[in-house]
């Protein structure tokens, strides 16, 4: 069954939907979209470094995404004007990555695979890495779920309850870096954040609780992944962008729903 490239692609898409669901809900609640962009764009620099030093692309992107996410968390702790700082970092990381890739002589790099994903080329080993990474993200977020929610509602309330909001921020930072590394081959660096926020935003009118919203987000993400793959085959369109198109259409449909009180 895993011999079929389409089955592997579908399973890879479902893994990313599973990991991006609960994390995407936090990205929406905590307004971390730009934070996600900076982390995701850093992955391109990671690709260049991985190819240059001949290490695995997954390890390279995970490392650079983690460094970027930690750097951004540090900055936000110092009360910088975050919007501008993140805008600078997000685009600087992308530009540095693109320039760094061009320095790689001798390696023919299909850059668009990293920018927009190459889900139809996912092999067995890569599929295993994607699922392990996705399960690690889900495990991490579930483990800290109540603490993360409390810190998201109010850092003061979390502190009064004996929690450490800084540690919860770190948990989200690590989870985000993992999702970036996992999703790079599926939707590409430019569209990872779309997969985090679009299904979560679409899920909001359907949910009455944070848990409900996370579950519906996973479902919408899974639907988007499968729908996008189908569309990509049917209309011969690129798979990664097609997945995001499917998610965006589901979001548009969700706007017609009344918000549940």
């Amino acid at each position, binding site marked *: 069954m895993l011999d079929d490239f389409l089955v592997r692609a579908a399973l890879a898409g479902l893994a990313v939907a599973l990991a991006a669901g609960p994390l995407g809900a936090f990205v929406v609640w905590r307004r971390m979209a730009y934070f996600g962009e900076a982390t995701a764009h850093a992955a391109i620099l990671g690709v260049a470094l991985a190819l240059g030093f001949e290490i695995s692309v997954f390890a390279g992107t995970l490392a650079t995404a983690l460094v970027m996410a930690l750097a951004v968390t540090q900055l936000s702790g110092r009360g910088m004007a975050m919007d501008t700082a993140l805008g600078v970092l997000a685009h600087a990381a992308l530009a540095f990555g693109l320039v760094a890739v061009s320095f790689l002589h001798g390696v023919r790099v299909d850059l668009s695979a990293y920018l927009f994903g190459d889900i139809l080329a996912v092999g067995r080993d890569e599929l295993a890495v994607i699922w392990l990474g996705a399960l690690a993200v889900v495990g991490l977020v579930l483990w800290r779920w109540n603490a993360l929610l409390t810190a998201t509602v109010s850092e003061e309330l*979390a502190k009064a309850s004996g929690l450490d909001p800084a540690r919860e921020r770190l948990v989200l930072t690590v989870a985000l870096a993992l999702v970036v590394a996992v999703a790079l081959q599926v939707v590409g660096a430019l569209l990872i954040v779309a997969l985090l926020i679009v299904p979560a935003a679409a899920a909001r009118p359907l949910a009455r609780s*944070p848990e409900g919203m996370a579950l519906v987000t996973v479902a919408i993400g899974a639907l988007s992944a499968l729908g996008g793959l189908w569309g990509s085959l049917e209309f011969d369109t690129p798979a990664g962008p097609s997945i995001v198109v499917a998610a965006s259409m589901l979001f548009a449909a969700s706007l017609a729903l009344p918000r549940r009180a």
Partner: protein
Amino acid sequence: MPCLPGQRSMSQVLIATRGLGVRYGAVNALEKVDFEIEPGEIVTVVGPNGSGKSSLVRALLGVVRPAAGQVIRRPGLRVGYVPQKLAVDERMPLTVKRFLSLPERRGASEIAQMLMRVGVAGLERRQLTALSGGQFQRVLLARALLADPHLLILDEATQGLDQPGTAAFYELIEQVRRETGAAILMVSHDLHVVMSASDRVICLNGHVCCQGQPHVVTAAPEYRALFGLGTHGTMALYQHRHDHAHDRCNHERRDEPAKEPADAG
């Protein structure tokens, strides 16, 4: 320290600060604050906007790190905190029941009883964003009380409540103190309602201007310099026995002549 009602034994004290300073960048929010609170005490912190009231609370909670001095907590201290306001994001669906189970799970009957106790029974399934101001404050109080706190911290907790609502809220707080023996630290500018219920009032303006029993503090020149004549007669609600206990507040502003408010008794 001026006006401190005697030195207490440290074992009794729930939380204390010694020489506490809080700084935001170049701005000094608090300087040299010595503060302590014992079980069962009701202490009110008053001060104008920007006087460092919220900074004191944030330092006590551990949200901001002291730039100077230290915060000493009794080991195992449980704190219940009712914030000034809580902006729950529209995009996070959250029912009252779920909110009360953050971060620790609470049973349905425990939640129902607590909601009844604070006067908003049956709101479990309501979204937080659909509550009125008064309901919201009571839900916040319910969450704080579910932790069975030794110390309850209320930061401008009656903001947005009308006068009967405020009075009822404070009645509830006194009742909580009677029933649980918790110490209560209130930060407020609702001077006349709050202070009558307090054992001790601390007047803050970047540092501790003066402190003591309510009638002592309202008579203190430091207090009048801060809140002075702008209170339009609310001062008359207090007994103003001019016992000059405030003279022990040897403070840099002491040599300023205190103007007697025309409406003071």
